[in-house]
Structures are given as structure tokens and as C-alpha cells.
């Protein structure tokens, strides 16, 4: 059947344009990867000698090991705490009808619609004023302020698709509140919760502007990269940057695959 909505030419244009945009998005990432594979201390293109030297060096660096540990600890803490808060928040956002709902739905977006560096500086001032020493904990808190609303939205989208009659039915069939939550609500919303966790982890892992002002002595990967960038070229910058990008890609693909297989397992059978 002929598609009357978009002409052939329009569809071709959209396809080509999308490919150009995707190339635009990934070109610098590829540049990072290429320069990490050059043996030379100073980058020049075309690359004369390819090598994995900088990968090995970066991988074996004690300092970088510490950074990765910090980034991971923050990311895990943020994932767990933000998902729990956001799960409740998503129910308030999309499941229940209550008096302050419309206000809540907009208030929760404010930290997303706020420049992160400014938020980071405000938090820095706040922590200083109330006498909280900066560490990975303050950085994790800063991440929570920005990430929890995003995770709330991600889970809320799943909650919108949730039929409240399922809970009524379970109750009518004799289930207690806790049983309803454990056997019906949570399993049905699980894919949304899992996506929310993935978002939380990855957004925290890659966050730079909040970490810049709130980590104190506990450096994270993006913050360390920044300090090296402004100090001059080191092949370790694109190398660690590429490693971090790859790690994020692996987590995203593995997490996405997990959601896919859970769904698949559920809908298996003829």
C-alpha cells in the first residue's frame, strides 16, 4: 500500500538527514577512540603507528583505578537510592489522583530544567555553609537531585500503562497489600523500574558538571578527564574517555538485553 503521509522524497530526506545527525553525534567519539590507539605521545593524523600502549598504561594506572572506584561507588549509591525514591514518586506522578498532583508533576521537573553547573555551584555553597565536607557522598547527593526526577519520569511512563484494576482484582481475590505489591504491582512495573535503574547508573557514571563542584577530594572519571584536558594533551584523556564510553555502552546493551529477555520470557509460548 502506498504511504500517503510522507512522500518518497521526504522519507529519503529524513533517512539521509538522520544518518548525518547520527554521524555528527558519534564523530567526536570516534576521534577519541582513534587517538587512543596511536602510539605517539602527541596526536597527529593520519596515525603513523597504531598501538594499544595507552590502553594498557591507563588500565594499569593506580590513580585511574581509584577514579573508577569512586565513580562506581557514586553510581551504585545513586542508582539504588534514586530508584527507590523515584518509584514512589512515579506512583504519585501517574498512578494516584490526588490534590497536589499537577503541582507535583511540574515541581519535580524543575531540577531537570535547571543548568547543572549552576546547581553544582549552588550545592557547593550550600554544603560549605552548613559545614558538610565535600566527598563522594556530597557528589552522590548532588547527582540524586538531578537524576531522581529523570528516573521518576522513566518509571512514570511505565506506571501510566498500569491498569489499577489489577490491584483491585488481586485484592478481591484475597491478596493482602504486601502480596499485591510483591506479586502484581512490582512485577508488572519491573521493566520500567529496570530502565529507571539503568538511566540512574549511566547518568551518574557520565556526569561531569555536578561532580566538578561537589566531589571535593574524591575525584571521578569525568572530573579527572577535565582537569587533564585543560592542562594540555595526554593520550590518557581520549583513552580513558573511550574506555568510559565503552563501559557505558556495555552496561546499556547488557541492561537493555536483560529487559528484552525478561519481556521475551514473559511472552514466550505459542
Amino acid at each position, binding site marked *: 500500500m502506498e504511504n500517503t503521509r510522507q512522500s518518497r522524497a521526504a522519507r529519503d530526506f529524513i533517512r539521509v538527514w538522520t544518518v548525518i545527525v547520527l554521524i555528527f553525534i558519534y564523530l*567526536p567519539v570516534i576521534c577519541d577512540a582513534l587517538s587512543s590507539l596511536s602510539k605517539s605521545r602527541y*596526536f597527529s593524523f593520519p596515525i603513523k603507528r597504531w598501538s594499544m600502549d595507552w590502553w594498557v598504561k591507563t588500565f594499569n594506572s593506580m590513580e585511574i583505578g581509584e577514579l573508577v572506584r569512586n565513580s562506581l561507588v557514586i553510581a551504585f549509591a545513586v542508582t539504588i537510592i534514586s530508584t527507590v525514591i523515584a518509584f514512589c514518586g512515579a506512583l504519585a506522578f501517574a*498512578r494516584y489522583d490526588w490534590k497536589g*498532583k499537577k503541582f507535583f508533576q511540574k515541581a519535580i521537573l524543575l531540577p531537570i530544567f535547571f543548568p547543572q553547573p549552576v546547581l553544582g555551584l549552588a550545592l*557547593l555553597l*550550600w554544603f560549605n555553609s552548613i559545614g558538610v565536607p565535600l566527598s563522594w557522598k556530597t557528589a552522590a547527593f548532588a547527582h540524586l537531585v538531578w537524576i531522581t526526577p529523570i528516573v521518576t519520569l522513566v518509571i512514570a511512563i511505565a506506571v501510566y500503562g498500569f491498569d489499577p484494576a489489577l490491584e483491585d482484582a488481586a485484592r478481591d481475590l484475597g491478596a493482602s497489600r504486601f502480596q499485591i505489591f510483591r506479586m502484581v504491582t512490582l512485577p508488572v512495573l519491573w521493566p520500567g523500574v529496570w530502565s529507571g535503574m539503568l538511566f540512574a547508573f549511566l547518568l551518574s557514571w557520565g556526569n561531569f558538571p555536578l561532580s566538578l563542584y561537589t566531589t571535593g577530594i574524591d575525584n571521578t572519571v569525568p572530573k579527572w578527564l577535565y582537569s587533564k584536558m585543560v592542562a594540555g594533551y595526554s593520550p590518557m584523556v581520549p583513552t580513558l*574517555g573511550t574506555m*568510559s564510553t565503552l563501559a557505558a555502552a556495555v552496561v546499556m546493551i547488557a541492561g537493555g538485553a536483560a529487559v528484552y529477555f525478561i519481556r521475551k520470557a514473559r511472552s514466550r509460548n505459542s
Partner: protein
Amino acid sequence: MSDKNAEKIAKPSLIARIQDLIASKGGRCAMPVYILMLLGFIAPLAMVAGFSVAEPKSFTAFTSFSLANFAALFEGSVWKSFAWSIGLAAFTTAILVPICYPVAVGMVRVFGRMGSLAVSVLSVFPMFVSENVRLYGWILFFTKKGILDGTLALLNGQGPDVLYTPGMTAFGMVYTYLPYMLFPIVLGVALVPPDLITAARDLGASRFRTWREIELPLAMPGVLIGMLLTFVLSAGAVAESKIVGGESVMVVTNEVNVAFSYSQNWPMGAAFAVTLTFIIGALTIYAFRKIDLDKILGRA
């Protein structure tokens, strides 16, 4: 009944609001988020506001009062930084709409299920890579003997000398905030029932008129959210001007940072931050009044 009416007439007090919150299931669920926002968003901003009216160079808020910090906005070059930030943000927003719109239409109507899933995964992924790493890639691309220059040299050419310029700052912002514009527009375009477009075409409207009079107005909530988000984020951005822009222009956040750290003048930095927050907040709250989130997100 009468209580209700009374409440509608008089604005509910804070205590009444908190009581409402605790009384309803939804309100109780919203509590943890509200507490987090209070401690991590409202309180820090209130503290910044407090500092902004303290005596210049003081390190405590709420003990002195002065408007001198706001006067500093018009002395020296700070107002230029504001102008640059707003200008760059407006430019970024204006240019990202036409860049993202066709991609969004493609994701909703052309690529099919798997295709648009692939495109959305590919365009959400950059959000998980810190912007400095991605911006650094552009330095490697544009620098002397970099990817572009090196490639052109093979053809006896030369790469353009664009790094560390205001134009490059704008380029960096367009690059960084592309996904933030794309996804709201996708939500917006998905709000347009395909039948309406078929119907409009069937009723004799040209493709352009259909787009102008049917598709765009219906997709507008998403486009507006994308524009707002992009504008707000790029108005407060700092990494682009520092990394690819080489501080060829000072942006507002940079000024705040300098006041906080090098100048050790917290009240002045706070005044800049408050001014920026005021602009952003006014814009956001104005736009938020016009949108219904249940409609935009709950459609699926």
C-alpha cells in the same frame, strides 16, 4: 462541602497543603521526592539567594544586607557574559529545532519499530557519556594535524582554524544539547494522530499546509518543551566555552565560578546565579503553566 468552597476561595495555607499531602496516598508517595528537592534544590537555591544580598566578600548569609552585588552586574563586563549566554542559548535553541524535527518525524513515522528503537538508543546514549569527553573529540577533529586537518593535508588542503572561538562555543552547545531537543520533539510528534494527517491530505490540503496547520500545532507541546529545555541548559552551560571555546567568551556560569573560587566573593557569584536562575525560572514557570504532562507522557 462548605469547607471545600472556602478552600477554593482562600488560597490553601502551607499547613493545609502539607495536611493534604499526608492525607492522600499520592501525597505520601510524593514525600520522599519532596524532601530530596527541599534539601537538594530549594535549600541550596535559598542559600544562594541569601548570599546574593549579603555584604560583598562576606562568607555568611542572612547576617547583612546589601544590593551592591546586583549593582556589580552592570559594572565591568559581567553584563556581556549574560548577553553571550542568552545569545548562545537562543542560537542553540533556534538551530536545533530544524535539526531535530525531521529526525523526530522519522522516528515516529518512517523508521518502523526496530528502526526508531535503534535511532533512539543511539541518540540517548551520548547523554551517558560526559560532555567533556565528547567535546574533546571535536578538539581532536579540528586541531592542527587532527583528523580533519590531517585528512585534508593528504589532499594538499588545510583544515579551517575554528577552535577556541565563540562560534565553536555555539557549535559545542548545539552538539551537546541535541538529544535534549530531540526527545521532547519525538514525544510531541507522537501526539499527532496519523489519521488526522491522512484526513487533512484527503480534504485537499497540501503537504505544507497539512504540516503547518495540523501536524505542527499538535506537536507543539513537545517542541516547546524541547526548546525550553535546550534554552535553559545551554544558558547555564560552561563546559563548551571552556573546552572547545577556549574561554574566548566568558559565559555566566563561568563568572559565577570565578567569583566563588578565584575572587572568593561568594555574594557576587550568588547574585549572578540568582539573576540567571530568575531568568530561567520565569521562563520555565511560564511555559509549565501551558502544558499538561498527563497528556504528553500518559498517552502510551
